[in-house]
């Protein structure tokens, strides 16, 4: 077998960020992401996820629960995303699948499907408002919320981390360069 140094490549590698200080844009690297589908009314399902991750499945729409290693995000009434530190996803996937056994569910590793980037700074909200039809007012969408929505032509899954505000934005990797460049261009006027 030929041995070469293994390199991981992200579509965000090498992209220039915004120029001024009011918007920051960074890549979140290779955060592990696993989608889990199932019925939150089914105790076996809920328990299995809790057992493996140590985190309760959030059943309130647009919220997430954070644990020590894992955090679980509501994506839909029967769909959640579990985030893990880099390279934790395969072990998680295996553990979940094992634990869930016959329980109706789906476990899918989507770590590479989504690129994750962080948009923050005083003008971050203004940048998002350029492409997203979501009401981002601090009283409507705040730290602790997450949701699927749209930004320009991309479907995104967005998490608000704090009130700075800081947003983590997940997007299919094939849209990542487009979205990044859009954010950069949209930031230009804010310096």
């Amino acid at each position, binding site marked *: 077998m030929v041995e070469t140094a293994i390199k991981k490549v992200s579509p965000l590698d090498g992209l220039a960020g915004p120029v001024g200080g009011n918007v920051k844009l960074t890549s979140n690297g290779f955060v592990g992401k696993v989608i889990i589908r199932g019925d939150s009314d089914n105790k076996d399902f809920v328990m299995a996820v809790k057992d493996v991750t140590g985190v309760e499945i959030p059943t309130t*729409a*647009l919220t997430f629960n954070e644990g020590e290693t894992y955090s679980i995000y509501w*994506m*839909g*009434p029967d*769909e959640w995303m579990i985030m893990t530190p880099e390279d934790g996803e395969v072990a998680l996937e295996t553990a979940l699948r094992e634990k869930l056994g016959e329980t109706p569910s789906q476990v899918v590793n989507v770590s590479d499907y989504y690129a994750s980037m962080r948009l923050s700074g005083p003008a971050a909200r203004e940048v998002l408002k350029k492409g997203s*039809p*979501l009401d981002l007012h601090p009283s409507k969408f705040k730290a602790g919320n997450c*949701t*699927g*929505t*749209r930004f320009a032509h991309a*479907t995104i899954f967005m998490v608000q981390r704090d009130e700075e505000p800081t947003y983590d934005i997940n997007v299919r990797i094939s849209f990542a360069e487009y979205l990044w460049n859009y954010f950069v261009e949209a930031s230009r006027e804010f310096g």
Partner: protein
Amino acid sequence: MLVIKCPFCGERDQTEFTCHGEAHIARPENPDELTDEQWGDYIFFRQNIKGYQYERWSHDHGCGRWFNALRNSVTDQFVDTYKIGEEKPAIPSDEGK
């Protein structure tokens, strides 16, 4: 430009959704027992109501769920949205007004 209440995510902008036409058209259980006319009716013929109509939407850019809605196709106002499997809301009595 409608505001649509996703039964799961709440009120959202129309551009997050796709409409999939008339709701409550069940796929025939035994297609072989249908005449060509009956089968054609199932795949092609629609009520296309001017007034209140039940229809299907999906929250593509949100939670990805499909749901049903009762909407007035003249005023473009929604009476309600409801989950698949839930009983359909009644047509308001101002019908024909």
